């Protein structure tokens, strides 16, 4: 069966070759993993602050929340817009468009390959964290782990689709990465990467829940940390965002490709 030019053999080759490609840049990926330390810095500020009581998280739960936020971020980082912009501006995109495979799959495979390469470094950082804070150690139950895995994967899907939507604008303008920068700012503050959503004033929290951002970090992190969450509402919202973004991305891509070929001809 083919979905946008994808079948099992292509999946295997694509993933294998992207994984091998990523393994070449292990040092670079280790540095990227390390550059995700922001949740740990925020954790140290939060745990020393008087405002902590307002979070509804005691010491250990706070540690677990921020470690989970770090891990979720590690496995839902998306950079398709930068690669795509590079490919589009340097003309590498044109041969991709001629292939019977939707070009987006190539980027999906690259991201998955990178996540696999990142896994040992993320595990190492988590191990160091537990060595410093042994009382925070926990292992999620198998069910909890699978749910968290699903939530992280859906978060990745939302982030990927959202960024692909911005990337598709590259067909019309070279400013797509500037747009990406603009959406990154609300992501940073509303996703739960810097503060759990429970710390927000109720009005802001209610408003934030209508944006896709809390489902990118806060919701999966809570599931992973084993905190009480409304699973149905969380997964429902994640599904709704995917269902909204997927057709938009496909439509915009199709229109973009048509425009792009018109420009080259």
């Amino acid at each position, binding site marked *: 069966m083919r979905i946008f030019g994808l079948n099992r053999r292509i999946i295997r080759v694509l993933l294998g070759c992207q994984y091998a490609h990523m393994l070449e840049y292990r040092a670079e990926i280790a*540095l990227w993993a390390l550059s995700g330390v*922001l949740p740990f810095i925020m954790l140290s500020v939060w745990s020393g*602050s*008087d405002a902590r009581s*307002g979070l509804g998280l005691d010491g250990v739960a706070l540690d677990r929340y921020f470690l989970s936020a770090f891990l979720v971020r590690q496995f839902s980082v998306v950079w398709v817009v930068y690669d795509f912009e590079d490919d589009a501006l340097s003309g590498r995109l044109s041969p991709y468009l001629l292939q019977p495979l939707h070009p987006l799959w190539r980027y999906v495979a690259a991201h998955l390959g990178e996540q696999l390469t990142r896994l040992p470094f993320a595990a190492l950082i988590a191990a160091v964290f537990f060595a410093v804070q042994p009382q925070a150690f926990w292992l999620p139950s198998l069910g909890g782990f699978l749910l968290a895995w699903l939530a992280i994967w859906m978060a990745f899907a939302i982030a990927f689709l959202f960024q692909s939507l911005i990337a598709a604008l590259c067909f019309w303008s070279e400013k797509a990465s*500037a747009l990406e*920068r603009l959406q990154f*700012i*609300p992501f940073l*503050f509303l996703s739960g990467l810097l503060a759990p959503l429970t710390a927000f004033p109720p009005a802001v929290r209610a408003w934030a829940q209508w944006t896709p951002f809390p489902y990118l970090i806060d919701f999966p992190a809570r599931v992973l940390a084993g905190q009480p969450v409304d699973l149905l509402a969380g997964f429902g919202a994640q599904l709704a965002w995917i269902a909204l973004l997927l057709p938009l991305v496909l439509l915009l891509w199709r229109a973009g490709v048509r425009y792009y070929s018109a420009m080259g001809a």
Partner: protein
Amino acid sequence: MGRYWRTLRRFWGTALASQLEYQANVLIELLAVAMSLSGSLFLLSLFYGPDQTLGGWSWAQALMVQGLYTVFDGMATTWLRPNLGAIVTHVREGTLDFVLLKPIDSQFWLSLRTLSPAGLPEIGLGLGLLAWGSHQAGVVLSLSALFTLLVMLLAGGLILYSLWFLIAATSIWFVKTWNATEVLRALLASGRYPLNAYPPALRLLFTLVLPVAFLTTVPAQVLLGEAAAPILLAGLALAVLFFAAARAFWLFALRFYTSASS
């Protein structure tokens, strides 16, 4: 000396002239700065309930720290990122050869070649926030405090530059190190909050190993009249030390530079 000064004026004149052509970018930058600053203030407000403090710092005092952080972040955008970020490209594409052949010091050329006006609004907003926070915190400005502040800001700038340059210079060996500067940026974000907000072990780290403290907390303390002489001297000593290290490391690294093709 005169030659360096004339070169610098020429560099920056052309850089500004070419960058100001892109006016849409200026608008996007302004929007990004405004969004980012309001997000930071929102985040900071989460730490403050009614009459609470963060590590013993009042809201107004924390605003001063936030303002100083914004100034340094703007400085990084204006000066460090466009210049030091280009070192990686020079190494990868072999154009560092041309820089080394020029009859001018290579570190000077690489560090001051261009300016990006994109960070200027951020510097302005940061200074505004610093002034507003100081006013709210009841700071009475004396001439000597202002002078000390200026010296400490220069020291902080020198520390930031030296750290960034040290890491950028490692690209002679590793070629792709701009990710290392991403790590540095992530760690520098700790300067948004007063040093006392961190646990003691991190406080030590942020004072001596990665001296973020001298960028934001110490200058704020100078304005508040709380900075003791030893810490100021330590800041100056670290600035000189880091700069000397960056310089020595660059000369050392150049011995290993073998151009892109060889």
